[in-house]
């Protein structure tokens, strides 16, 4: 049977053969991974739909083809090798065609129905035609809970996604629903991170050695970052605003606590957890910022999953602190510390990278006092914490030396307007300025 490029995710239209795990002539068990495919969302090993022998590789490593396009032919055990196609006009959607070579399916061709006369599911992984028919209940529940139903692993007959599967996923939260999948909703924040994670992140640069006068080839991760940045800027009209925050008291509080915290908990107490804590509280007041734009409406996230941008020497990665609204400042410090350690060790898993609903970028760590971040696609905003700088400021008609931090917000203007953005920043500023020694960690 002809194996086609699987559709790894609902909106994915093409995939790249990253690596063949089998070579022609190799025996393959049903469900055994035989090829690794990378898309702009995931790297995935593709299980064989049948037991047999790999007869022919159609799509070489590094080649990118449309989903549904043939990539290999497997001779099924117990099924005679098909004769060469006698009918020239094979409908492009019949993905179970036995023709050894078929023109690539148009990128936006409808998902093929399973036309396999043997009754065996044809080669697009779990995205089999039958399985992609969802019951009314599943559709309704998935819509209500903002769950990408195509991404769920079904527990029903023949892997059908059941209403219970959707409810279970909803109970775990949208992020968990996604993590439980092999096929994911596009969440670009994590996309590049996920990409980086599937490759050895630490030590593997997204660049080749930059030799003056030559072109540095684009790695897959670099391509994705480039694509996503352009996409975000093109689709989400970015508006930008900034507030100054007086963190003098907060700075003092943190200074008093940090040694003890490190000794007791083993993690550094930076300004980041204080900031994330305040951000979450302010997001709760302005849930439209913890949201995502779509044509059907604004999906207001159920969870507060805060992505934290971590700049590595070689790469940028955005792991996610899940359910940050359930954590104390100290809890956030530990969660963030754990993620940073994992990121540096190259140990971040897909679960660490999925499901962010809002992003915090600690640009101040590099000394920046002003930045204009690009929103991670699929979110409504990104907020930065700039460097804390001592400045002379006017307090009660006197000049005082205070620790000032700029906080910058890029927002998707389709989702919210300046009023909400400024309400959010104003609230955030008040919360940060109210933090002082003796508060609850």
């Amino acid at each position, binding site marked *: 049977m002809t194996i086609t490029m699987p559709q790894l995710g609902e909106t994915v239209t093409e995939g790249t053969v990253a690596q063949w795990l089998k070579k022609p002539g190799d025996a393959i068990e049903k469900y055994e991974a035989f090829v690794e495919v990378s898309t702009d969302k995931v790297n995935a090993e593709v299980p064989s739909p049948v037991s047999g022998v790999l007869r022919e590789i159609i799509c070489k490593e590094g080649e990118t083809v449309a989903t549904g396009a043939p990539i290999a032919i497997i001779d099924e055990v117990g099924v005679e090798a098909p004769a060469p196609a006698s009918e020239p006009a094979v409908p492009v959607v019949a993905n179970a065609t036995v023709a050894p070579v078929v023109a690539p399916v148009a990128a936006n061709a409808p998902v093929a129905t399973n036309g396999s006369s043997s009754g065996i599911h044809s080669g697009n992984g779990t995205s089999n035609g039958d399985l992609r028919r969802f*019951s*009314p*209940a*599943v*559709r*309704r529940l998935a819509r209500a809970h903002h769950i990408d139903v195509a991404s769920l692993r079904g527990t*029903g*007959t023949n892997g*059908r996604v*059941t*209403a*219970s599967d959707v409810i279970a996923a909803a109970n775990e939260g949208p992020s968990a629903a996604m993590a439980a999948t092999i096929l994911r909703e596009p969440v670009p924040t994590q996309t590049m991170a996920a990409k980086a994670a599937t490759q050895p992140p630490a030590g593997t640069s997204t660049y080749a050695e930059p030799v003056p006068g030559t072109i540095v080839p684009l790695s897959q991760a670099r391509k994705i970052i480039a694509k996503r940045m352009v996409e975000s800027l093109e689709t989400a009209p970015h508006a930008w605003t900034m507030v100054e925050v007086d963190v003098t008291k907060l700075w003092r509080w943190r200074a008093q606590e940090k040694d003890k915290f490190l000794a007791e908990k083993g993690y550094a107490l930076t300004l980041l957890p204080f900031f994330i804590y305040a951000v979450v509280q302010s997001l709760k007041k302005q849930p439209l910022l913890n949201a995502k734009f779509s044509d059907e409406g604004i999906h207001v996230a159920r969870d507060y999953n805060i992505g934290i941008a971590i700049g590595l020497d070689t790469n940028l990665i955005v792991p996610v602190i899940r359910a940050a609204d359930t954590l104390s400042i100290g809890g956030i410090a530990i969660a963030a510390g754990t993620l940073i350690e994992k990121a540096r060790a190259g140990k971040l898993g897909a679960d660490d990278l999925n499901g962010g609903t809002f992003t915090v970028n600690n640009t101040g760590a590099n000394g920046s006092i002003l930045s204009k971040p690009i929103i991670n696609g699929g979110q409504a905003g990104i907020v930065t914490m700039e460097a804390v700088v001592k400045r002379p400021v006017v307090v009660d008609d006197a000049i005082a030396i205070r620790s000032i931090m700029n906080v910058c917000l890029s927002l998707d203007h389709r989702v919210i307007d300046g009023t909400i953005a400024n309400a959010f920043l104003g609230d955030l500023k008040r919360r940060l300025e109210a933090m002082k020694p003796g508060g609850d960690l």
Partner: protein
Amino acid sequence: MAVASPSTVMNNVEAVRHTLYEALKNDERTLVLGEDVGARGNVFLITKGFIEEFGAERVIDTPLAEASIVGVAIGMAMEGLRPIAEIQFADFIYPAFNQIVGEAAKTRYRSNGDYTCPLVIRTPYGGGVRGALSHSVSIEALFYHVPGLKIVAPSFPSDIKGLLNAAIDDPDPVLFLEHKKTYRLVKGEVPSGHYTIPIGLADVKHPGDSLTVVSYGLYVHQAIEAAKRLADEGLSVEVIDLRSIRPMDRTTILASVRKTHKLLIVHEDNKFGGIGAEISAMVAEEALFELDAPIRRLCGPDVPAMGYALPLEEEFMVSTDEMAETMREMVRF
């Protein structure tokens, strides 16, 4: 004459007898009429001894003439009595069809409310008892289509008493169906004293989460048995006993389907144009977006009658094994 002490265990036939006896004793307007209800005391001995206690004017042996039984009862009902007519077997009800559908069901409407027809027609129905072509039929769907008629088919002793009392109290005609195989098979506690169960109220007889099974009559008991087997396998099935076929308890059915997202209807009457078809349509209209699986029906086949030969009868009846297997498929679907 045996009279129930508080909460007595009875079988279904005893529950009918007990309720009729109490009705005759407590309300002078009530009377029973039908073939062999008097001297013979009914073929199932439901009214045995009644004629001696209440007299031949209130326990009336009729000729073998079902149109007359119902026609006479309609007249009695319109003039203030509370007749409880009996059709000896549901298979014999056809001659009375015109009286039931053309007269009784239309009385209130035709008289613009001046007359009502507080008539109860009791009849044993159903198969699985080697009753052959003339003692096995289910007739509910024939009357289901008719506005103005209520149809009840309880199959637990306590439900029988509550619904038979409600039928006698009801100002309009009620067809009261008694599955004859449950007559002596099913036993249960029956509270003493007069009580009614509202007509049109279903009852969840076995609660569950993963599949709604709607049934009535004999099959409720089999469905509960099947649901218990599945519970042992860790599969949770809810069994609803309709009790009243018409009016249909939409609320209970829909609430259950909204919980389980799956619906199986099981009835002995033929599938085509049967009760299950109406329930399916109702759920599809009201709760399509709750459904996580195609609605399924396990019903009698479309053959003219239940044969006498055991293989023919078994072929007609839905076995508990079949119910359990279908439930399994649906829960796992």
